[in-house]
């Protein structure tokens, strides 16, 4: 069978990040350095849904912040569309767990924010924002203040705000981490629906195995201290995925095996 090689959108080459310990941190000497990320290399394909999965402290958020341009790597390089990442850019929007909405603006005002920064004329802004509120299922909530909304609805606003500027890449840092289990499942379904429709490249950080298995085209499994890539697991299951189906469960088992140390043989058996 002929395989079409996907275009590389993001190229991560030997990225390492070290932190120096600040004064007063318990159990560590001041100035002591530790590696948050060590020699991480990775390619993210255009239009791909990639999940970074691992325990807390494995550096997955640090990697995301480096990809997004909020932080610089200690060594190594990140290229997006062949150009090195030096700072955040509106073509690549990050969505945070804490929503980071502007509480003094209405829902509509929040969705318009990015367009306003880009000096898009008001009428056009309004039209685009309404279109995206429809897409995320918030039709009719335009005039609400953000504190009137539930967590899930707030994150929908953040997604609409991000998509309004029509970025190529979405970086998502545990965006559903603060939601209850049922809302979370619904949000994951919605995200896949939107992604299938908009075909953005998504890099999604999570520590929830089921979430990664449901969402990802490929799952990058990290180990902690120092943060390294342990394994990249391709997910062949189709979409939308059936959380109780055989493919889902098998993929889930692979991820479990990759995460639990000392079961390397079992993983190789699966692969």
């Amino acid at each position, binding site marked *: 069978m002929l395989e079409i090689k996907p275009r590389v959108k993001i190229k991560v080459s030997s990225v390492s990040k070290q932190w120096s310990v600040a004064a007063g941190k318990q159990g560590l000497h001041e100035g002591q350095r530790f590696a948050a990320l060590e020699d991480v290399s990775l390619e993210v394909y255009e239009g791909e849904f990639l999940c970074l999965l691992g325990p807390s402290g494995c550096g997955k958020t640090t990697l995301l912040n480096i990809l997004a341009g909020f932080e610089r790597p200690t060594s190594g390089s990140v290229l997006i569309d062949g150009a090195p990442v030096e700072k955040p850019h509106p073509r690549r929007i990050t969505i*945070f767990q804490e929503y*980071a909405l502007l509480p*003094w603006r209405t829902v509509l005002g929040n969705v318009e924010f990015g367009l*306003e920064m880009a000096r898009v004329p008001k009428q056009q802004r309004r039209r685009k924002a309404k279109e995206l509120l429809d897409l995320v299922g918030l039709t009719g909530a335009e005039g609400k203040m953000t504190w009137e909304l539930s967590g899930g609805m707030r994150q929908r606003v953040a997604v609409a705000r991000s998509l309004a500027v029509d970025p190529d890449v979405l970086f998502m840092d545990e965006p559903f981490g603060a939601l209850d289990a049922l809302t979370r499942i619904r949000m994951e379904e919605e995200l896949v629906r939107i992604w299938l429709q908009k075909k953005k490249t998504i890099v999604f950080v999570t520590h929830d195995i089921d979430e990664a298995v449901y969402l990802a085209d490929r799952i990058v499994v990290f180990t902690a201290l120092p943060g390294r890539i342990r394994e990249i697991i391709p997910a062949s299951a189709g979409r939308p995925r059936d959380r109780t189906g055989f493919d889902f469960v098998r993929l889930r088992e692979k991820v479990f095996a990759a995460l639990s140390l000392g079961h390397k043989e079992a993983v190789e058996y699966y692969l």
Partner: protein
Amino acid sequence: MRRTERLFLSMAGFLTLLTVWHLISRAGIFPPGLLPSPLTVAAAVRELWVRGVLLMSIADSLYRFTAGYALAVFLGVPFGLLTGWSRRLEAFVEPLLQTLRPISPIAWLPLAVLWFGIGNRPTIFIIFLAAFFPVTLSAIAAVKSVDPLLLRVAQNFGATPGQMLSKVVAPAAFPYLASGLHMALGTAWVFLVAGEMVGVRSGLGFLIIDGRNQVRYDLVMAAMVIIGLLGLSIDRLMRAVELLALGRFGARRS
């Protein structure tokens, strides 16, 4: 606590103060005339009203106060926001502010009269000084209270420094700033009397000086009572405006 209960308790508080005041003035601890009773003071307030001095004094004082305070807000808020935003500017300005701030506005009085002459301007200047430092310092602190995540979002969407300051920092800092402005209002009001001790021949502060010169301590205390009650009204008014604005700026979130 219910509204009526709160109202009742605050009335009881006032009544207690009046009673204690009345009893002390009747007990003859101080020579008569040096501590007039509440009734005498009420008569003095009436006298000021009948002479047409009361409303004029209040109007003059409020005008000077508003001018001085507004000037402090219009200069102090942008200045403080900029200073809180730029580490360099803060390093440059902050020690100066902390040096000038402990100097009581009253200390500027002799110079203020020389610089601004007789009239409203020295008083406005004193009130400006009294409000400027707390306003500026609270604006600096307000910028630092802004959620860094919001700054990241703005940066991500490509906000220019100007957009960052006007569209994110200023509104995000507002709830914190509002309480700073509220406190500065009270502080500035305290300096009204000092500000009206020289250079002017009207206003509530002047009434106190004038009462003393006439050896009319009932008039002195009448002016004190008016200053106190007006201070209370201003505080309550500001609180209402603040609550309204906080709702608008989303400080009531979750």
